[in-house]
């Protein structure tokens, strides 16, 4: 609450004669200017979004008109003959992001819970700082690290372990030759990249859980594990999910590191060892050299589909938060 509002409501409550909160705000020129400026800022963002959407749709229109629904179901991507379909990219974006979320969430929650509940004070700050630092590493550096460290490790150690030691070589998720540049590598790098976002939000939310909540659980005879599971995490649930969604948003749009690791192949394959493609990658790869009108329109259309996918995923996630958050209200 701002000071002036506080003062105004205090004055109003005090029942000063002829002076209401509205009066005070109305009289101050500074307040009105302030209000106007913030309104303009607030309006600028939605207007910008609408304009961007409009521009992208206009540029993408030739592709949508030419291919119709086939654009999102076809796997063809042939700039020479002008036949475009985005299905492998849509699939790649969704699968790599989902897999990244699956890998990152347990780690992120583990880090957050440890830091909020177990870590001694002297350890909490440095570890939190280091985890947050992960978010400051440029994505091209992640990509390089992926090329030189992660890919050889996954190809040389993890892949043989899954196939030979665990004997899962014939399982559809793990078939085909593994060259290291594939859906799995891209997902793992994405997981590392989104971990700090989810973990930072979850940590702050957990730290914000009132002490009384913990004390009540302990007083009822709960162990530390039961206290965290039954009293702390449910209280922080909607915030934690918010953190996961933030990570998901990052994963859907990440371009550079994924492009360097995913193998860039227009193909849908059930195997995580097979190369794939994402929507952000194809735009980054091809936009600079695209000359044909239809090619550019198709890339714009991919951009539009990516925007739409992100929007849809966010709506679903919001709905999820809303569903989950309700019963948790105290």
């Amino acid at each position, binding site marked *: 609450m701002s000071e002036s509002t506080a003062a105004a409501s205090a004055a109003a409550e005090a029942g000063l004669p002829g002076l209401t909160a509205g009066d005070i705000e109305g009289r101050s020129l500074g307040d009105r200017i302030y209000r106007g400026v913030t309104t303009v800022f607030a309006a600028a963002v939605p207007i910008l979004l609408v304009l961007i959407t409009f521009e992208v749709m206009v540029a993408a229109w030739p592709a949508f008109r030419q291919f119709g629904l086939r654009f999102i179901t076809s796997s063809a*991507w042939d700039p020479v003959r002008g036949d475009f379909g985005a299905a492998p990219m849509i699939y790649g974006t969704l699968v790599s992001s989902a897999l990244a979320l699956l890998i990152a969430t347990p780690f992120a929650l583990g880090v957050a819970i440890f830091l909020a509940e177990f870590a001694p004070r002297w350890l909490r700050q440095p570890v939190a700082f280091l985890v947050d630092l992960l978010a400051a590493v440029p994505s091209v550096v992640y990509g390089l690290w992926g090329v030189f460290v992660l890919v050889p490790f996954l190809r040389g150690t993890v892949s043989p372990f899954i196939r030979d030691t665990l004997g899962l070589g014939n399982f559809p998720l793990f078939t085909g030759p593994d060259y290291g540049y594939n859906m799995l590598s891209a997902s793992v790098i994405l997981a590392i990249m989104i971990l700090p976002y989810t973990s930072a939000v979850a940590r702050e939310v957990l730290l914000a859980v009132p002490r009384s909540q913990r004390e009540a659980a302990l007083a009822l005879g709960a162990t530390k594990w039961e206290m965290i599971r039954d009293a702390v995490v449910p209280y922080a649930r909607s915030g934690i999910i918010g953190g996961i969604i933030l990570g998901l948003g990052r994963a859907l749009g990440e371009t550079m590191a994924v492009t360097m690791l995913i193998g860039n192949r227009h193909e849908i394959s059930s195997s995580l060892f097979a190369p794939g493609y994402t929507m952000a990658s194809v735009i980054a790869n091809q936009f*600079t050299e*695209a000359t044909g009108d239809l090619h550019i329109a198709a890339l714009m259309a991919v951009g539009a589909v990516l925007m739409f996918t992100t929007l849809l995923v966010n709506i679903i996630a919001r709905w999820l938060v809303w569903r989950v958050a309700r019963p948790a209200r105290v």
Partner: protein
Amino acid sequence: MRRTAAFLILVVAAACSSAGSKSSDTAAGSSGSVDLTGAGATFPYPIYRKWFSVYDSVSGIKINYQSIGSGGGIRQLQEQTVDFGASDAPMSEEEIAKAKGGPVLHFPTVLGADVITYNLESVTQPLRLTGELIAEIFLGKVTKWNDRRIAALNSGVTLPNADILVVHRSDGSGTTFIFTDYLATVSPAWAAGPGRGKEVQWPVGLGGKGNEGVAGQVKQTPGAIGYVELAYAHQNKLPVAHVRNAASAFIEPTTESITAAAAGALAALGPSSDYRVSIVNAGGAASYPISSFTWLLVYQNQPDATKGRKLVDFMKWMYGDGQNYAAELDYAPLPGELRQRLTERLAQIGSNTAAK
């Protein structure tokens, strides 16, 4: 958040730098040394940068070139936001028709080439390949290194019983255009399949971003094969294959063998050629077959006579002294006869307005 912030910083930085260059433009304009601006291909950027800096010191004319990619260069030329464009692939009729300033002339500047690089530990001497075989490999029809068709060309070489992993560019590029142009020229199956373009539908393989992406994936994966431009392969000491040319000789890619390809192709070019020609699989005993020109794109009718004259002056220098700087940067200079012809062709560049 962080990305947004970074983006904002970039925008601000770009705004500052463009504001800076604008003010220097006006300053230069008033003192008589009009800047020329160009944009386009990234592949010849090192040699262009060298040329523009040397030319500035010999003539005082400043040329600003942005290596934004051939596609971007063509678009900017069409919109007339630059004085000249640069491209690794010739413009199509359709693209020329869309140029707002009328007919566009293509002037070859230097030559480049694609080399085939591979990762085979047991192979110590350079691998020998033919165009047909490279096409078969990139079509996914030859899948093993010890295929008898590869063995037949490489007697005495121990080829492993390993899968071939094809690596191609994932980003649209002139390098890919040269490569697919070559394959489409020598292989009917390739011409009918993926075809030629800066980006094609690859039947097999992985995509790497940029020369470094392809080279990185090849270096790291035993059994991999890919194509990169000569300068990149040379500077990074990658193993390169010798490719059989139209005269049935296996040729190592060097600046000399690439220049020889242009000389070989020249014989087939009439004096009225517009030079929008491919020189892949060129004739001549010493020609390396996967070679190509890279072009400057110039309007025949220059809207500004002063700028037009300065551009022509620069190009004259480029076809003279300029060519000497090519080889040290791993570009192949144009053969002498071609320089002569192109210098004469500069006379075609005229102006709408009378020269001052």
